[in-house]
């Protein structure tokens, strides 16, 4: 018989046994005993539930809302060419796949008893392992909050950083804005959900204004000195929108220290700016439900980056925006890929087998107009120190000098990505 002479060999064999069960063809796998509860039916949670189910696990998904509106492509609604219906999805596909979907808000997590309480349900739901993909919440009070910006202020100065009614409110405000008006966006320092998101939004708002209100201005007040895909965005802005978009870096007066929703004013270190529409992207933290289980250290949740198991609560995996994932940005794409890694690790643990070694990708597409797409890509592994790294000499942004045809192709592929990932998540 083959002689086992290294740790590597043992693991190879054990790994092979594990993976026989996770071939994604969905055929001939051993059932993995155990109940997994997934909190959150967004990019991470819906993906995790679907992959766990495929691998034979009993899954209960708990999501606060009956439908999910995606942030990806929500900027097309502001651009005037997308509809809320295009970005809103229900959980019927997950139910059809045999996932127990509970619509309700998690109000209690008992990590000792391994049970979750849902608002309005008297019987707690037991779990063997849990996945938490609760996304972000905003810092409305306390350290790191933006002065003047609380829950009530969001009705006057929408964030639209969770898609849904806030997206519609911001779109209505844009529609009502006079030609020649000023659209202000305040952008927080890192880390926040979707690093290129503010700049895609600025682009598509510019597209809307150029088409409908060409004398208007866009002012971006940024809490950073540089931003994602900066050269590509700024090049495209000049090419497509002339001087419509003004970007102010942190040190140049971009740092917003306070807002006043009554006068629609943003105050910076250097002065004050009054807008007709003010879109405040507030400072962020992990979705608050993590506090019920003590999962966060500071704003975010530390995990074993190879399995996404919490560093503070064993048996609970935190994925998506809520976790710290090394070199991976907070994106829907990342959350989806992390869900697959966590699902494989959970199935392995339910079978008392070692977790497979992870491999992850992130690609963030941005539209600068409906026919102009750019992207940033990265391939990830877990490095020697246990954190997620980018594979050297891979990834990067779209070419600086690409032709209009290539930009158009990338816009098409962005729509293709959306179709694929929505099918993966929602069936």
């Amino acid at each position, binding site marked *: 018989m083959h002689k086992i002479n290294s740790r590597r060999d043992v693991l190879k064999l*054990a790994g092979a046994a594990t993976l026989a069960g*996770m071939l*994604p*063809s969905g055929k001939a796998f051993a059932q993995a005993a155990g109940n997994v509860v997934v909190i959150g039916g967004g990019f991470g949670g819906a993906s995790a539930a679907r992959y766990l189910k495929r691998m034979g696990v009993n899954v209960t998904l708990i999501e606060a809302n009956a439908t999910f509106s995606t942030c990806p492509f929500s900027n097309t609604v502001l651009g005037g060419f997308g509809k809320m219906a295009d970005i809103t999805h229900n959980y019927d596909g997950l139910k059809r796949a045999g996932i127990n979907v509970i619509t309700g808000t998690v109000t209690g997590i008992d990590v000792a008893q391994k049970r979750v309480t849902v608002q309005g349900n008297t019987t707690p739901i037991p779990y063997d392992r849990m996945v938490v993909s609760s996304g972000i919440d905003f810092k409305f009070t306390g350290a790191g909050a933006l002065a003047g910006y609380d829950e009530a202020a969001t009705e006057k100065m929408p964030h639209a950083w969770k898609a849904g009614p806030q997206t519609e409110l911001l779109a209505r405000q844009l529609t009502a804005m006079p030609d020649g008006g000023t659209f202000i966006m305040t952008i927080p320092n890192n880390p926040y959900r979707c690093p290129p998101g503010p700049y895609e939004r600025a682009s598509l708002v510019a597209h809307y204004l150029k088409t409908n209100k060409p004398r208007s201005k866009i002012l971006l007040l940024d809490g950073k000195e540089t931003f994602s895909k900066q050269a590509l965005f700024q090049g495209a802005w000049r090419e497509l929108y002339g001087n419509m978009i003004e970007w102010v870096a942190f040190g140049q007066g971009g740092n917003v220290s306070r807002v006043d929703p009554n006068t629609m004013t943003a105050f910076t270190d250097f002065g004050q700016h009054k807008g007709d529409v003010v879109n405040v992207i507030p400072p962020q933290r992990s979705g608050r439900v993590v506090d019920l289980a003590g999962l966060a250290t500071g704003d975010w949740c530390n995990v074993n980056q190879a399995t996404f198991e919490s560093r503070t609560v064993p048996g609970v995996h935190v994925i998506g925006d809520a976790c710290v994932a090394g070199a991976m940005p907070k994106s829907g794409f990342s959350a989806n890929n992390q869900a697959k890694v966590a699902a494989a690790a959970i199935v392995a643990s339910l079978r*008392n087998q070692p*977790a497979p070694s992870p491999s992850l990708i992130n690609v963030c597409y941005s539209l600068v107009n409906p026919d102009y797409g750019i992207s940033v890509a990265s391939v990830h592994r877990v490095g020697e120190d246990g954190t997620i790294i980018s594979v050297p000499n891979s*990834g990067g942004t779209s070419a600086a000098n690409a032709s209009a045809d290539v930009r158009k192709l990338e816009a098409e592929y962005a*729509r293709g990505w959306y179709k694929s*990932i929505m*099918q993966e998540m929602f069936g």
Partner: protein
Amino acid sequence: MSLRTLASCTLALMALGGIAQADETAPAVLATACFACHGMDGKSPGQIPSLTGKTKEAFSTAMKGFKTDQIPATVMNRLAKGYTDAEIEALATFYANLK
């Protein structure tokens, strides 16, 4: 080695800390990362090409062409550089076996 030895090795390793790790990335793990664009099991519902119905040779020729910038691409040239030639072969075999 017997299954029992394997199991006890595995358990011993797992006892070292949380879930143990295998140190080679399996083809299924490499491949599921691609589904976000190419569709679940490589069947794309949209504008990105499907990865099913390709021979192993066609698949690895495409990936290696992307990796060396011999085949023009919008994004695959950047992604393919993240994989070793051995991983590309493993991916090619994996996808060729998908229905």
